[in-house]
């Protein structure tokens, strides 16, 4: 019986994936605004009419697809879980649904509902199924997010009182937000803190390496792949679209914090000895580019930021999958102990090399398109930030290649004689699927760009007015 849980979870996530692919094909690229909207009355509190409103636009549709793809991947990599599998998959399913909910909510309070709902399964997944100082890491993760979302809730309520609605569509309209209880600069700051903790930015990032280091593989995949994107999505959807004037005042800070995160993350990555913490810090570095792209406040910059979220989700997801498979076999993540694994694990090595190349921005991979777009978008306004970030990208080439050299190449270590390569069908499926997606987004970016651009354009109309 216990083993049936994974099949049920797989069926559910595959169904979600199939539905989201169907949505992708049904998506009308020429229409503006939200599509496939579900809009039901939910709660009325005096002047507020809260709605159970869901829908996608060009910005959220790709993120929904990313989430469903990575959900299937994280279920597959969890196939070997033996500890309380039913509770495990239940938590994973709750996590997946709340993340999708965040991306498709059109009501700010509903968005907040999903945003906070994700904490509960994440806490348990790390604290119960993790390794190392798992309880400490899980608590730290929850405390950081709760602290951030307390700020966010204040921001949400103030915006709602000022705009007399919680509807994201209405709040994004020009001239809707008038007469705020506290200055809008503060509201912007509160929302920014809430999202920035999730993104994360330096110096609010310290929960991320801990959480990644101690989380089980599938949770790392979800965390790096989609949970961080909730922060970027929130920044674009809420901060920039609802409060464009404040965003324009803050853009230099966005660029500066973004560039600093890129550089700082890259430097710290060089010093890591644990593979998962290393990837976590490289995530900090890559998510800095998202902030830089948003700070540019232009078509190209925002598109780049959104694309970087997709690329990073797939590439880092792939990387955590590979490291997870390796850890399952070697039971260590210490770089110094690994080495020469290319012989014993050719397939895992290939996957890791693909992920590494994607991470350092090799052309024909998704990361390259994203980085170039961000740099193009930001260069005109923040030359210095782009130059600093390019240095960060150069460093990333350094740490990726150096890590690959230490972990999979070099002399064969006899400690690892007899370890097996990835040999289950589910492992093969995940690796092949994710590598294919990374390359697809690298050679045919239009598949997502066509969707992102109209959405970004309509945000820019709001920003420029």
């Amino acid at each position, binding site marked *: 019986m216990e083993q049936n849980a994974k099949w049920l979870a797989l069926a559910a996530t595959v169904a979600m994936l199939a539905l989201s692919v169907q949505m992708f094909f049904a998506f009308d690229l020429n229409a503006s605004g939200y599509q496939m909207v579900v809009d039901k009355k939910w709660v009325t509190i*005096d002047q507020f009419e809260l709605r159970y409103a869901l829908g996608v636009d060009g910005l959220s549709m790709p993120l929904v697809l990313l989430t469903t793809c990575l959900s299937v991947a994280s279920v597959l990599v969890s196939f070997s879980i033996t500890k309380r599998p039913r509770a495990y998959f239940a938590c994973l399913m709750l996590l997946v649904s709340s993340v999708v909910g965040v991306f498709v909510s059109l009501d700010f*309070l509903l968005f907040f*509902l999903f945003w906070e709902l994700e904490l509960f399964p994440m806490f348990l997944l790390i604290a*119960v199924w993790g390794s190392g100082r798992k309880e400490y890491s899980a*608590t730290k993760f929850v405390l950081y997010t709760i602290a951030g979302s*307390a700020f966010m809730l204040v921001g949400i309520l103030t915006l709602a009182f000022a705009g007399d609605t919680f509807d994201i569509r209405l709040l994004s309209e020009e001239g809707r937000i008038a007469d705020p*209880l506290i200055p809008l600069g503060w509201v912007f700051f509160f929302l920014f803190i809430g999202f920035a903790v999730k993104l994360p930015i330096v110096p609010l990032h310290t929960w991320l390496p801990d959480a990644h280091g101690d989380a089980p593989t599938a949770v790392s995949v979800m965390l790096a792949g989609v949970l961080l994107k909730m922060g970027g999505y929130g920044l674009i959807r809420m901060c920039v679209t609802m409060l464009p004037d404040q965003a324009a005042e803050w853009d230099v800070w966005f660029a500066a914090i973004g560039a600093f995160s890129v550089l700082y993350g890259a430097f710290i990555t060089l010093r890591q000895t644990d593979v998962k913490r290393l990837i976590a810090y490289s995530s900090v570095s890559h998510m800095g580019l998202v902030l830089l792209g948003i700070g540019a406040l232009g078509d190209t910059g925002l598109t780049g930021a959104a694309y970087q979220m997709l690329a990073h989700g797939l590439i880092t997801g792939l990387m955590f999958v590979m490291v997870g498979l390796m850890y399952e076999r070697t039971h260590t993540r210490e770089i110094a102990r690994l080495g020469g694994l290319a012989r014993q694990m050719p397939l895992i090595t290939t996957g890791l090399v693909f992920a590494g190349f994607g991470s350092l921005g090799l052309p024909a991979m998704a990361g390259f398109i994203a980085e170039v777009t961000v740099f193009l978008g930001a260069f005109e306004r923040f030359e210095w930030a782009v130059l600093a970030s390019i240095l960060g990208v150069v460093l990333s080439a350094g740490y990726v290649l150096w890590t690959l050299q230490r972990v999979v190449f070099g002399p064969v270590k006899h400690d690892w004689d007899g370890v097996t390569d990835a040999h289950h069908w589910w492992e093969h499926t995940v690796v092949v699927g994710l590598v294919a997606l990374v390359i697809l987004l690298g050679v045919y970016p239009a598949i997502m760009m066509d969707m992102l651009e109209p959405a970004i354009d309509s945000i820019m109309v709001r920003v420029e007015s």
Partner: protein
Amino acid sequence: MNGIDLVGPQFSVLATAGIVLLVDGLMPGHRRHLPFIALLGLAVSALWTLSWVSRDSFPQKDVFGGTLSLDEYAVFFYFLFAGIGATVVLASIDWVNREGRGQGEYYALLLTTCAGLMFLSAARDLITIFLALELSSIPQYILAGWGKDKRSSEAGLKYLLLGAIASAMLLYGMALLYGVTGTTMLSEISASLQANGEQYRALLVLAMVLLIAGFGFKMAVVPFQMWVPDVYQGAPTPVAAFLSVGSKAAAFAVVTRIFFEGLGADFLSDDWSMIFAIIAAVSMTLGNLMAVVQTDIKRMLGYSSVAQAGTFLIGLAAISVPGERFDLGGSGILLFTASYAFTNLGAFVAIIAISQKIGSDQIRDYAGMWKRSPLLTVGLAFLPGVPHRHPTNSGFWAKIYIFNAGVRADLLWLVVIGVLNSVVSGFYYLSVARQMFLGEAEDEKTISTSPSIAVALGAATLGVLVFGLIPMPLISAAESAVDALRTVS
């Protein structure tokens, strides 16, 4: 409706109390059926109330010479008290069986209190209010001292003494009010004050302060909260659960009625609004800060209930201005009362089940509870802790509602304090949750839950979740109740 029909819900509860005593005395072999008789009585009471609502003659706002008002407002609380009573009866079964003595008396006293609370929520006359208050309080004093240990006796005595002082203050306030207006009927008091009350302003403020002090004791707000942690800790846990939701809800019901209907005159309302606002701010802050440092879970819930009472008071402070804002503040209080009842009862039920097995109320003894009883842990961790932060919980909507009322009544500073306090409260609930999920249990034995506890916990959880995801029915009930209150005057 004839006389007996008008007090039908209370009558059926009181009659059941008598039946329980008779069965206990005459048919000792049937003692184990006592709680079910009590549940039946409460169900009859709820059904009776339900039958009123469906009748054309409902509501009747002037019955028994205007001493009771049977309107949507009273009905809202009738249902609430029947529900609270039923949950507490379910949660008591194990404890009472183990205690072994005075089973009939225990349930009879509990039912009597419920009847008193129902009268309290319908009363529109100072004398009736006082009688109803005593009818509900005296059994509670006895129940608080029901346990065999010294702690429980101390709790009972403390509750009795402080309760007596509070009643005295209340009576003095009522006497002053009567002296100024020459009547005990709330509606006449209001008319008299509007006509020529302003010249007695000083006297009225004194009366008001005394009333707030008297009811403040029942509402458990700072500075009348000193009994709360001791009594919660010492009293039998089911009784503590009842005190924390039942008597608090009734106190808010009657305070809202008295102050809006009786003392709503413009020259007074600003004063009491300010008093309530200040008490609210102090209660929330002090309650939460004290809760953070507690090591006993019942004391922690005690202080947290003080903090929550502060949140109720934001609603009271916001009703001072008649009209739209009154609706908001008033229905916010009702909404909060109901969701607070669900969450706190659920938490207490879980504590009852756990402490029966581990024999301790220390938070550190809850370590690793997740492995021992997932059901109870989830109940305890998520019923009281999540409410104030998450929209799947009815408490969240109540808070939004009350904060909205505060903002609209220009009490922004108070709302800011309220929001900050919600954050603080998150931390101590989280620390209990952390202990339960992550702590190392000394004893790995699983804790089984009896069916009655499971039903009680399930009902509370269901209430929280259902009204969290679909809060509209509760919100409209609260709104129509408050509408009724406004049209009375």
